[in-house]
């Protein structure tokens, strides 16, 4: 095998090298040396982006599993595997991110023995642990299929309904609980972002971003792996995204309306600029775009709209976790370059692992080297087979 050094491979190697340096600093010189976190800003980029945004960006998994297996929308089937893969990698990398952020990561297992059921963090931790396990089982058939191990696939299929319900239940809990984390800081978090509705807003944004990420990664992998783009599927997801965005926008509006904040959010201020940025990216641009049928039917339009959505909600979560505390603390927090480099390394690892998985596992049926005895029943409802059998009678 010949190794060709392309532009992206060089970028990847540079990111990895810097990331490894930062990892060294983190574990040999401590959190103070690697980050700009302080007693005033105990949570920085790693919580704000790696954890809050990371879990949101991995929401495509439970959204698509819900659509295809729970609601039985068969025509979306082709996006389930990449979405589950993204989610599985996303959660694994989230845990890797935690190992950087936790002050005593070697005690992360304490969660399992010193339980505090009153803690939102405890709930998030347990859900993430359990959901990663569920995702592992949802991902496992890819591996079994690759090696033509049909029996274990049958076993997993048998417990699939349980996995699906469990996965969506756990996702509902921890996606919303990430918002609940901030409920205990009413005097610290800026009122633009502190609201009792935080758990609902976090769950709502997870669904919108789950849909947007699925569109994004389908288009992106079509480009990267030269596979055929399933436009009808994307169009359908785009429609769902538009609805999800409207629901989110309505929730936000009602929240500001009921708290009497509408007058304040239109007044210019440091926080208002960030809020406007967030609302423009997350709602104004993608909703306007997707309202045009022409955009909704074009791969380029859908791709762009999904990117805006993702950027918008990333801004939202960074506002909740970072911008919203700056007035309380009295100074700005800007992550150190080493913090960025760890985050970048984790993202780059995610892309690389996704690429490897697509190359060696049947994630996209038309990309991988065809496996001759691939399970044909995989994409069909269980009961369809007997129907066909009897059709010939």
């Amino acid at each position, binding site marked *: 095998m010949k190794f060709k050094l392309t532009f992206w491979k060089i970028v990847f190697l540079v990111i990895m090298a810097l990331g490894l340096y930062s990892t060294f600093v983190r*574990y*040999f*010189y*401590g*959190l*103070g*040396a690697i980050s700009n976190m*302080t*007693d*005033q800003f*105990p949570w920085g980029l790693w919580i704000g982006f790696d954890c809050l945004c990371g879990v949101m960006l991995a929401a495509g998994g439970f959204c698509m599993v819900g659509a295809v297996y*729970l*609601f*039985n929308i068969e025509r979306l089937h082709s996006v389930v595997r990449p979405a589950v893969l993204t989610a599985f990698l996303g959660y694994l990398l989230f845990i890797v991110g935690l190992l950087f*952020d*936790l*002050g*005593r*990561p070697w*005690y*992360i297992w*304490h*969660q399992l023995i*010193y*339980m*505090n*059921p*009153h*803690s*939102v*963090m*405890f*709930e998030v*931790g347990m859900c993430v642990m359990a959901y990663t396990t569920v995702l592992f089982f949802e991902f496992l058939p890819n591996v079994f299929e690759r090696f033509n191990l049909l029996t274990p696939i049958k076993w997993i299929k048998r417990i699939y*309904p349980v996995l*699906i*319900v*469990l996965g*969506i*239940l756990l996702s*509902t*809990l921890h996606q919303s*609980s990430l918002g*609940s*984390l901030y*409920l*205990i*800081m*009413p*005097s*610290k978090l800026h009122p633009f972002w502190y609201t*009792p509705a935080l*758990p609902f807003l976090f769950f709502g944004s997870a669904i919108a971003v789950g849909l947007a990420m699925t569109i994004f990664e389908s288009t992106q992998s079509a480009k990267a792996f030269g596979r055929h783009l399933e436009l009808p599927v994307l169009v359908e997801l785009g429609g769902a995204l538009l609805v999800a965005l409207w629901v989110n926008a309505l929730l936000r509006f009602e929240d500001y309306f009921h708290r009497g904040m509408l007058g304040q959010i239109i007044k210019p201020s440091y926080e208002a600029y960030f809020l406007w940025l967030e609302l423009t990216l997350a709602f104004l641009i993608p909703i306007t775009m997707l309202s045009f049928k022409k955009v909704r039917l074009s791969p380029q339009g859908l791709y762009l709209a999904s990117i805006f959505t993702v950027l918008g909600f990333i801004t939202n979560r960074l506002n909740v976790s970072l911008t919203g505390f700056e007035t309380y603390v009295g100074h700005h927090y800007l992550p150190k370059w080493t913090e960025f480099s760890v985050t970048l390394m984790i993202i780059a690892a995610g892309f690389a692992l996704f690429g490897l998985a697509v190359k060696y596992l049947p994630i996209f049926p038309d990309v991988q080297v065809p496996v001759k005895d691939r399970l044909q029943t995989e994409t069909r*409802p269980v*009961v*369809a087979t*007997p*129907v066909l059998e*009897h059709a010939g*009678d």
Partner: protein
Amino acid sequence: MSKALLYDATMCIGCKQCEGACAQQNKLPYDDQVAAESVQSEHKYTVVLAKDDKFMRRLCMHCEHPACASVCPVGAFHKTKEGPVVYDVWKCIGCRYCMVSCAFAQPKYEWKSLNPRVRKCIMCPDRVVAGKATACAEICPTGATKFGERDDLVKEAQDRIRQNPSTYLPRIYGMNEVGGTCVLILSSVNVEEYGYPASAKIGDTPMPEYTGRVMEKVPDFIPVWSLVLGGIYWVSHRREEVAAAEAEHKNGSKR
């Protein structure tokens, strides 16, 4: 009955002996340089702040319903029945949720350490359990920091305000804030000027209630939501089974 500290800022002379005693009690370095530091940190649990000719002490408030204890995923913080809110370092995983959740921003972190601990005033629990006053209260030459039963100290604070209404602002900071704290403050100026959070802002609701309202619904939510999801699965797949059965039936009748 829980113990508490009453700090009367009007009696404080800013001698900083409480800082020194605290450092000694907790085996922390204390010299002129540390004494000059005007912020709390991982090596300075309490600080005496000066403004004009007035003084103000800052230390952990030892809330009756501590946010730090409620948010800690591994329960490394707990409120003892004697009053102190204490920290079990061997449980801590270092998530720092206690630091972000504390309305008084009391927990500090050993950022330079490779095995960092959360640091804050723990109200000398060993001494308190043994029936002794905290180190800071014991050393205080003027009685500005007084140790005692919380109920008694509240009464005493109220008496002091009643007897000298011109000296004190008519409030006891910590009596009701975030559901009450075991550090009570009397002063002639607003404590907010020294960095304490405003009473109106933190309110009288115990902090754990804000997350508790959501967390208490989780045990009910789990079975209900599972049932709903299971139901959706059943309905959406049932439709298919029925369709298949009907098709089969049709085929059968044609034959």
